[in-house]
């Protein structure tokens, strides 16, 4: 099934099966944001540590489909060492990419580019977005 293979890339499955930075830190310096999607049952919490405007650590916990879980894992990996401004720029462009909206294609989204296939599956945009929306809220 060629269409679905564009969605379930190897990298995505690898992150789904071996999620990075999973589990929250019991540290008040981290900022936390929780999103629950009552229609699909996805539930995700993102936790971010920012020091001097730089993201030092990013964590996640929750449950949901492979796309939402893998996108959380990729997110927490690529955001470390970014400035808040860079992180927001990447997140906004990523969210536009998966929603099939205009985005800056010259920007390096690193491993998150594997989610470009999501735009062919409008029903799954929410799955790929939930962790990234929560992440943005941890930076507020």
């Amino acid at each position: 099934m060629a269409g679905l293979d564009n969605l379930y890339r190897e990298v995505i499955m690898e992150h789904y099966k071996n999620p990075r930075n999973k589990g929250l830190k019991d540290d008040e310096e981290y900022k936390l944001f929780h999103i629950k999607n009552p229609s699909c049952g996805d539930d995700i919490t993102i936790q971010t540590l920012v020091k001097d405007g730089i993201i030092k650590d990013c964590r996640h916990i929750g449950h949901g489909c492979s796309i939402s879980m893998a996108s959380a894992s990729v997110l927490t990996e690529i955001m470390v060492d970014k400035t808040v401004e860079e992180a927001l720029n990447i997140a906004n462009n990523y969210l536009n990419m998966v929603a099939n909206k205009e985005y800056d294609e010259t920007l390096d989204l690193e491993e998150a580019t594997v989610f470009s296939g999501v735009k062919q599956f409008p029903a799954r945009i929410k799955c790929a977005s939930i962790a990234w929306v929560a992440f943005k809220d941890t930076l507020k």
Partner: protein
Amino acid sequence: MMKNQWIKDFPQLRNQMIYLDTAATSLKPQSVIDKVNYYYQDLSSNIHRGMYDTAVETTMLYEQAREVVAKFLNAEESEIIYTRGTTTSLNLVAASYGMQNLKAGDEIIVSELEHHSSFLPWQHVAEKTGAILKYVELNEEGRITVEAFQDVLSDKTKVVALTYVSNVMGYITPMKDIIALSHQKSAIVVVDAAQAVQHLTIDVKALDCDFLAFSGHKMLGPTGIGILFGKEALLQNMEPFEFGGDMNDDVNKDISEWKTGPQKFEAGTMPIASVLGLVDAIEYIQNIGLIEISKYIDSLHRYALAQLNKIEGLTIYNPTSETGIISFNLESVPSHDAISYFAEKNIAIRAGQHCAKLICDWLGIYSCLRASLYIYNTFKEVDVFVETLKEAIAYFKKLGF
């Protein structure tokens, strides 16, 4: 295998889609579509107001529809209220009857099988009034039984709000016995019939329910129209749910008076086209007959289960469902991953919590897939569905799920 003579009436099926999502909303036959179009193209008038021909005809059709619905339920016309849907019907009862009649310490019986629209309004009434929500303990299959119901029924029970057919499990609640027992305690019973009305013959007099709610769009009718049946004696003492045009008898600066019939609850311009279209949906169902419909769905359902039961890597949560609803998961595949496979094959099923999180919690799952069968489905479609399901299991297994 018999040829399905009903498919030709459903223009939505011309795109070769396999539609297994009737529990979310049914398809609509051409006669319903034609009636809705007739209202917009030829009438487009308001009711109870104008004196010109189209307004008179519209009013006549609107009130005749009430007669058709009343006969369908074996109710009186004065007991049939038009609403936006089941959700509004159930909210109306909670907001009007519930807020007027409940007080701290009173008990409301609900269950974990309820759709959110059946128990959230009562959860809210309980919060506001200090009444207590009691849950019927479900049996090992996830059913409401008369015995378990009796365990929570008490002299304090004032309202019983239960689903007639669960939208996830497809089980039929033993409603008649529950109603009789409730009345012995002088409790009123609100029946959520959203998933029942398209499968079971409902006779509100025989059932003796106090309120019963359903939607047009799950029974071949238009969206935006729901019905609330309420016993006349109860409706008479209830306050309006919404205030506005057409629901009043006399309006003054200080105090106004409300209509006495069901129109007391129909404020503003109602979804007239949908009311008219509902008549054709009821007629369509009556022309086939609910017994014939149930028989056909039952044969499809059994045919599907016989094949599904042989598949490994599949969990079916409601193998004894009576109404053509199959809720399931692919082993270790989240429902939203699995559903994409079916969507790619143009098979419409549903994934998620189905607005019934409590039963997902009860089952110990985050979400599930649901296929629901109706008259326009065929044995061949069941075969394709089963084959697709097998392919999906193999596909996700290969991916490493």
